[in-house]
C-alpha cells in the first residue's frame, strides 16, 4: 500500500478532532491552548502534504506552514500572558471559573 495524500489528511483530521475535543472539554486555559496547538499542527500537516502532492513546484504550502508556526508561537506568547494576568487577578485559570460577566 502506498502512503498517499489521503493518509496524511486522515492523520491530520484525527489530530484536528483531538485538538477540538481538547478545546471543548478542557477547563484549564492552558490545556485549551494545547488543544489549539494540536489543531494548528493538523492544519500544518495538511499544508505540507498538499505542498508535496498537489503543488510540489513551489513551496507555498511550506511557507504557509512556517507562517502558521510563527503565529502559533505569537499566539502562545500573548495568550499565555493573558493567562498569567488572569491568574494574578482572578487566582484561577479554569475558564469555567472565570465568569464575572454573565448575561
Amino acid at each position, binding site marked *: 500500500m*502506498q502512503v498517499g495524500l489521503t493518509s496524511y489528511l486522515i492523520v491530520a483530521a484525527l*489530530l484536528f478532532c*483531538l485538538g477540538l475535543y481538547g478545546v471543548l472539554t478542557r477547563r484549564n486555559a492552558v490545556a485549551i*491552548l494545547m488543544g489549539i*496547538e494540536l489543531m494548528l*499542527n493538523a492544519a500544518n500537516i495538511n499544508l505540507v502534504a498538499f505542498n508535496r502532492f498537489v503543488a510540489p513546484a*513551489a513551496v507555498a504550502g511550506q511557507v504557509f506552514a512556517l507562517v502558521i508556526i510563527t503565529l502559533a508561537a505569537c499566539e*502562545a506568547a*500573548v495568550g499565555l500572558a493573558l493567562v*498569567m494576568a488572569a491568574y494574578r487577578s482572578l487566582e484561577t485559570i479554569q475558564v469555567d471559573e472565570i465568569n464575572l460577566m454573565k448575561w
Partner: protein
Amino acid sequence: MGELAAFMILSLVTLIPAVVVVTSSNIVRAALSLVPTFLGVTGLYVMLQAEFVAGIQVLIYAGAITVLILFVIMLTEGGTGVRTRQLNDQVPLGAMAAVWLAFVLIVIFTRTGWPTAAGVLPAYNVVAVGNAFLSDYVLIFEVTSVVLLVSLVGAIVIARRED
C-alpha cells in the same frame, strides 16, 4: 512497505500522545505529551520532504512553545501540584462533536479527488523557502516581523504588573 511502516509508526507517535494531551488529568503530563506529538508531526514533515519545516517544528514547537506552556503551568496551578479537575461538563458533547467531525472529514477526504501533480519539490527547500520569502512573499516576510513585534510588546504589557 518501509514507507508505510514508518508512516504508521509516526502516526501513532503523533496521535497517541495527542490523546494524552487532551485527556490526561495531569496538566503537566498533558503538556509534556505535546513533545512526542510534535516530534511525530516532524517525522511526517520529513516523510513529506519538508525538512526545513521539520527543523522549525522541533525548534519552535518542541523547543519554544512547549517550554513556554510548561513555564506557565509551573507558574500557575501546575506548580502547586494540586490536582484540579481538568475536564468540564461538556465531555460527551465534545466527544460527539469530535467523532462526528472526524467522520465527516475522513469521508470527505477519502472521496475527494485531490488534484495531484507529479512534480518534485525543490531539492534544497531551505533555499526555496528563502527565495519565496525574499521575493514572492516579501510582504508576508515583513509583516511577520511586525506581528512578532506586536506580540512581544503586547505580551510584555499584559504579563507585567500594573503597579
